[in-house]
């Protein structure tokens, strides 16, 4: 059976990964000289606690090719088809590592690596969708076509409090226009063409949450839906409750926003990812 691999910045929880047979390769999170494997050696809570309390900003580093090769070789014992879907190659070198790792695999196994051009549950929902297809017996070719078809249907949008982290990290890009506002504004960002890109800004946190709700309400049919937070579980729970009016709330995937996004947007991010039905 086809096996699905992704990286930890898909935000797929270990429970869901186990249920759908997804292998998750952790990225590395670095605070100064100390390096941790994302969500293996450092929890999301610990990451955000240190993000807010420490002077040096953390950085994230892609998994090495051998990290991927280890997973490929392990899976090669049970399958001869592997599909790897990584976060946007514009945000991390993870895709390159996953590709290089193909050369380090022995035996008769076909491996395809796809750059999802998105991240967080925007990547997560694509992986969930293809993992379900794999469980239903899809071939590697079918799964590759499915991922390419799902990429334009995946939408991730996030609301957060401050552009401080974005500015400090020097990774503003197209969001530059949102910087340095004299009024207090809450930015809304999305992932576009593989990069973090501004959508608009609202005047209050409540308006930001309304924006996320209305964004979901704009889709006529939804295949997968995820709600993520970094440090505000109550807010996320309240949003899930509200979204229950649009989509069965027990099917909404809860998740924690990955550290790579955390380093961009800080601790008060709330994010919604939609995989629109085809």
């Amino acid at each position, binding site marked *: 059976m086809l096996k699905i691999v992704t990286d930890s910045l898909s935000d797929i929880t270990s429970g869901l990964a186990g249920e759908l047979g997804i292998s998750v390769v952790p990225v590395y999170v670095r605070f100064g000289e100390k390096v941790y494997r994302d969500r293996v050696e450092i929890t999301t809570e610990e990451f955000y606690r240190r993000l807010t309390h420490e002077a040096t900003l953390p950085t994230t580093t892609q998994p090495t090719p051998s990290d991927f090769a280890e997973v490929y070789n392990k899976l090669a014992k049970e399958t001869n088809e592997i599909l790897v879907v990584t976060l946007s190659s514009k945000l991390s070198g993870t895709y390159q590592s996953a590709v290089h790792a193909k050369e380090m695999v022995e035996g008769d196994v076909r491996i395809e690596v796809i750059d999802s051009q998105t991240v967080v549950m925007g990547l997560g929902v694509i992986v969930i969708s293809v993992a379900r297809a794999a469980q239903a017996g899809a071939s590697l070719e079918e799964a590759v076509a499915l991922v390419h078809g799902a990429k334009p249907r995946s939408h991730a949008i996030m609301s957060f409090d401050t552009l401080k982290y974005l500015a400090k990290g020097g990774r503003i890009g197209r969001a*530059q*226009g949102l*910087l340095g506002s004299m*009024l*207090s504004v809450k930015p809304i960002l999305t992932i576009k063409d593989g990069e973090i890109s501004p959508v*608009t800004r609202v*005047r*209050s946190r409540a308006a930001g949450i309304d924006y996320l709700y209305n964004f979901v309400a704009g889709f006529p049919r939804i295949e997968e839906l995820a709600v993520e937070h970094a440090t505000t579980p109550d807010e996320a729970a309240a949003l899930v409750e509200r979204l229950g009016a649009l989509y069965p709330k027990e099917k909404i995937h809860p998740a924690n926003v990955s550290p790579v996004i955390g380093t961009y947007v800080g601790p008060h991010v709330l994010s919604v990812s939609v995989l629109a039905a085809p």
Partner: protein
Amino acid sequence: MRQVDSIGGRDLRDMFAAATGWLEKSAPEIDALNVFPVPDGDTGTNMMLTMRSCIEEAYRAPDNSVSAVADYMARGALIGARGNSGVILSQFWRGLAKGMAHKDTLDLSDLVLAFKEAAIMARNGLTNPVEGTIITVASDIAAAVSENGYSGQGQNVVTLMKDVVSAAGASVARTPSLLPVLREAGVVDAGGQGLYTIMEGAMRHLAGEMKEYEFKKPQIIVGDILTRLPKTLSVADEEAYGYCTELVIVGKGLDQKKIRKRLEKKGQSLIVVGDDERVRIHIHSLDPGSVIHYATAHLGTLHQVSIRNMDEQHLDFMEMQKERLPAGDIGIVAVVAGDGLADVFTSLGVSAIVTGGQTMNPSTKDILQAVEHVASDNIIILPNNKNIVATAEQVQTLTNKRVAVIPTKAVPQGVAALLAFDYEANFDSNLELMTRAIGQVKSIEIVRASRAAKIGGWEIKKKQPMGFVDGDLVAVADKLDEVLFKVLSLVETGQASVLPIYYGEGIEQEEAERVSAAVREQYPHLEVEVVRGGQPHYSYLVSVE
């Protein structure tokens, strides 16, 4: 971290070869930092090409002594220098080479001296050194390393280079606060950024970290003050740019002072650098022929002559600027009076501000000029005053650009419309979103009567404060804050969450704070913001959002 106690010629060459590769990765981003309307703009590319020539020559050095290699590198930088920044960079190299003269290898104190000479030489090449540019960064590097002294334990070349990089980074971040043109464009100095990137590349190579950075790109530094888009684009800036003319003269007994003097009248941005046998000239001239003629007739042979039409470069630059606009090639022009309000609007992404308001309505021509100067073909105008809406609408018939006017009748409506701008949406959707947003705010204006009058049952004395809501007079009282509270009591605030108060020209900050504190007390559910608007006429502009 690797420990390096001294560096030889080969190390020097390899460090900066790696740095050149590192710079190459971000050359396009550095090019994009250039400030309108600087004409010869490809700073990143120019510095990268200068460094390449520098490295090529390094391989020709007769021996592996650091002085020989540095000498050849400086020569390579000089003959290969491109653009303003490249020429200054070549001077920087000349200084480094001077500081490294007669040395086989370099220890820490030699490096400190080399950076000092480099900073001095970079500055000397310019007739009018401007702070907030590459020369400031060079000086800050020199100051940082000479302050440290490097006599203590654990100090080595790697730690010194790390200090160089962090001093350069901090210095680049400060460039917008030194140079207003950078501040207004919302960027850091491109040449300074280039020098930082070169030093970072050299340091990473020396520290053995390059492998780790294989898939990464150099970071563009973010300025340490508020970044903003261009405030007002003035038509007066439009002058002929002419030709960017660069050449190397090889001759005997060349006198740089004399050459500089002769060329000064022939153009702008003149740089003359080199020695008595080899001089590089960079000048922006309307008549490059006369420069060439002077050089061939009086000085020597010409090499690496380059003459580029800067008006063409300027057009390319305008094209490139489009990428930095909010999105989808939409520019926003706002009519605003008061420097504080102008800041508010620029901070929210307006491309150009036309000064005007209640007491001074701008002409159609004023608005048209702003529209034409924004590097975008699709323009949204926010008139922010009911008397200016019609004027703004006239612009549509006078330009080839696609222009739409959102009929904002007051500043709070303009801010609301601007906040609703959606970067993902197209022109028409944005018009709809922005127009809809106008209806979601109430605009309160508190103003003193300019004369005694009777309006709709109110008898108003001269200078008496009056309160308007969306243009209708609703309250009159003897004190400004009294009117404000009366007005607020008449407005539905239950649904609102934010209440910015923009205080005008004649109001002290303390007074505005006091009034705002009182509002906060009475309306605890509202987030009250106090912002200096600096607008004439209106004592307070208040937005109920």
